């Protein structure tokens, strides 16, 4: 009897994912076998896992092709995916550092949150390095299912429950779009491998007129737009971001959004390079809508988590500007921007975690009144993160936006860049509003419940370093990003 040949597996190509999954499983068991109410040690064990995965990401940078491809070419750990893996690991690590205090305060300190964060990070990684539509889908599901649970993790809070359910329903709905698009693309081209789709399209030019193929691409774009929260597919974002536990909101706005961009870029640029004129126009419209909707609605928000949710929609719009440009500078700009966005956004959410009170209270912008007089260091940090989000020069947010918009101008999308800059200017209003409350209103409260634990201090320190250092000397990170998009 002949044996079925063993496919080329190459575990080196999925090393970071494997490390995180193994750690997640071990932590799951440690959680049930070690008695006790204190679960903080699980966060530190998770951090060890993340550092181990980070070392393997670091070692895989610039590795030869033979070490990168795995699972019969459905996984490719190139520099592009490695850069994204770095973003995911940074987001997960910063989230772990800020979550312990929050969980204790909200009385939902169940140890399962740590394995779930690790598993969703592994899903993101698989999504970033997938070169087969099925692998990307698998990564997306691992990521999403963990996140649905995480969004509803604060079981006793009604809003958290609402967030979990809403995210689950709309996420499942958007996954349907994505999967249908993949199925139609498979029907039109006969393959789910991104490389094979591209070569089929190159050899059969007639397929670009096939409605099946075009609708497939369009539905996939819709599915990914849901995941990156681009308007008009952003409806779930404010409610989910507001209701989800604050550290998880920070995680959701940084990691999964970057993962969505990773897969979106991979599919559009690799599988449909011949349709660039089509998807570039599409992304042009999406970018303008997303920036404008996000910024305008953010102007009138009073809840700071909701405000940052709309701001995160707007930031997806800025990244889409670089994507619409469709050139290497734009792609590098997105990579750079997603990393800097992780630093500045999780930093801002860390402050929100500190200011918040039990039961998700004290999350309004007005609750920051007088923070600058009572806790000047925290207020200064918050100001730095908000200035960076607004795109004010010495911070990294400015550099990121600069590269995205200049990529758009290089591709001739001058109007798109102008709309982006106008939007960015409008966004300054709602970031400054928080600062007006912090520095120009009299303090209502003493902020005596605000206790900066060493973990949160470390997270704030990393975030502020990630905002300030690349803001002043962006060269090194930018070179990494540019190297990552040399496909």
């Amino acid at each position: 009897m002949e044996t079925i040949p063993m496919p080329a597996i190459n575990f080196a190509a999925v090393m970071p994912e494997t490390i995180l999954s193994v750690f997640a499983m071990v932590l799951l068991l440690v959680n049930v076998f070690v008695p006790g109410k204190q679960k903080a040690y699980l966060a530190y064990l998770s951090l060890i896992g993340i550092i181990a995965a980070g070392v393997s990401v670091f070692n895989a940078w610039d590795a030869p092709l033979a070490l990168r491809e795995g699972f019969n070419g459905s996984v490719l750990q190139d520099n592009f995916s490695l850069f994204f893996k770095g973003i995911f690991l940074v987001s997960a690590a910063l989230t772990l550092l800020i979550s312990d205090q929050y969980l204790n305060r909200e009385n939902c300190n169940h140890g399962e949150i740590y394995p779930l964060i690790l598993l969703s990070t592994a899903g993101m990684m698989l999504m970033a390095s997938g070169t087969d539509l099925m692998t990307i889908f698998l990564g997306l599901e691992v990521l999403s299912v963990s996140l649905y649970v995480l969004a509803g993790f604060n079981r006793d809070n009604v809003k958290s429950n609402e967030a979990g359910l809403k995210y689950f329903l709309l996420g499942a709905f958007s996954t349907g779009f994505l999967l249908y698009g993949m199925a139609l693309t498979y029907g039109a081209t006969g393959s789910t491998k991104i490389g094979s789709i591209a070569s089929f399209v190159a050899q059969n030019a007639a397929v670009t007129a096939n409605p099946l193929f075009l609708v497939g691409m369009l539905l996939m774009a819709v599915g990914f737009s849901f995941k990156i929260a681009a308007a008009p597919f952003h409806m779930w974002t404010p409610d989910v971001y507001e209701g989800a536990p604050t550290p998880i909101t920070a995680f959701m706005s940084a990691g999964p959004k970057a993962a969505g961009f990773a897969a979106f870029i991979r599919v559009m640029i690799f599988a449909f390079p011949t349709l660039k004129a089509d998807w570039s126009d599409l992304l042009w419209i999406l970018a303008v809508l997303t920036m404008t909707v996000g910024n305008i609605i953010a102007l009138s928000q009073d809840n700071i988590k909701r405000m940052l949710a709309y701001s995160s929609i707007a930031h997806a719009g800025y990244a889409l500007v670089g994507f619409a440009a469709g050139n290497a500078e734009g792609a590098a700009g997105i990579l750079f921007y997603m990393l800097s966005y992780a630093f500045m956004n999780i930093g801002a959410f860390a402050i929100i975690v500190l200011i918040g009170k039990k039961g998700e209270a004290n999350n309004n912008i007005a609750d920051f009144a007088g923070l600058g007089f009572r806790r000047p260091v925290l207020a200064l940090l918050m100001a730095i993160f908000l200035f960076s989000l607004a795109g004010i020069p010495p911070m990294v947010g400015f550099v990121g936006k600069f590269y995205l918009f200049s990529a758009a101008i290089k591709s001739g999308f001058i109007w798109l860049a102008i709309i982006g800059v106008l939007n960015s200017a409008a966004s300054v209003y709602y970031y400054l509003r928080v600062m007006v409350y912090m520095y120009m209103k009299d303090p209502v409260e003493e902020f005596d419940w605000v206790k900066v634990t060493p973990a949160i201090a470390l997270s704030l320190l990393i975030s502020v370093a990630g905002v300030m250092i690349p803001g002043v000397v962006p060269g090194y990170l930018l070179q990494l990003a540019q190297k990552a998009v040399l496909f």
Partner: protein
Amino acid sequence: MLGAYLPIIVLVAVAAAFGLGSIILSSLIGQKKPSDVKMSPYECGCDPVGSARERFSIKFYIIAMLFILFDIEAVFLYPWAVLFKRLGMFGLMEMGVFIVILFVGYIYVWKKGALEWE
């Protein structure tokens, strides 16, 4: 090619006509002598007890969910068993990894007390 579906369409049409026809004809020419017993909802021949919209204990859902998980595992084992010899050592190891992952979940569920009814 669509012609192949004609018998199915005919079958659907006949089924619809039969169902609708029976209801319409019996309402037109049938006798109607309603009584309390005849008008009451029918529940397996017994007298109906309470509303059907009751809350079920969450235990049922947990058990059903766990059943599905481990049921799927068994489904995966069958094709693997059929091809066991042709898959060789590789297949054994892959299935080993799969079972270990599920086993971790099983231990978790057990320790968490989800399998206890009380």
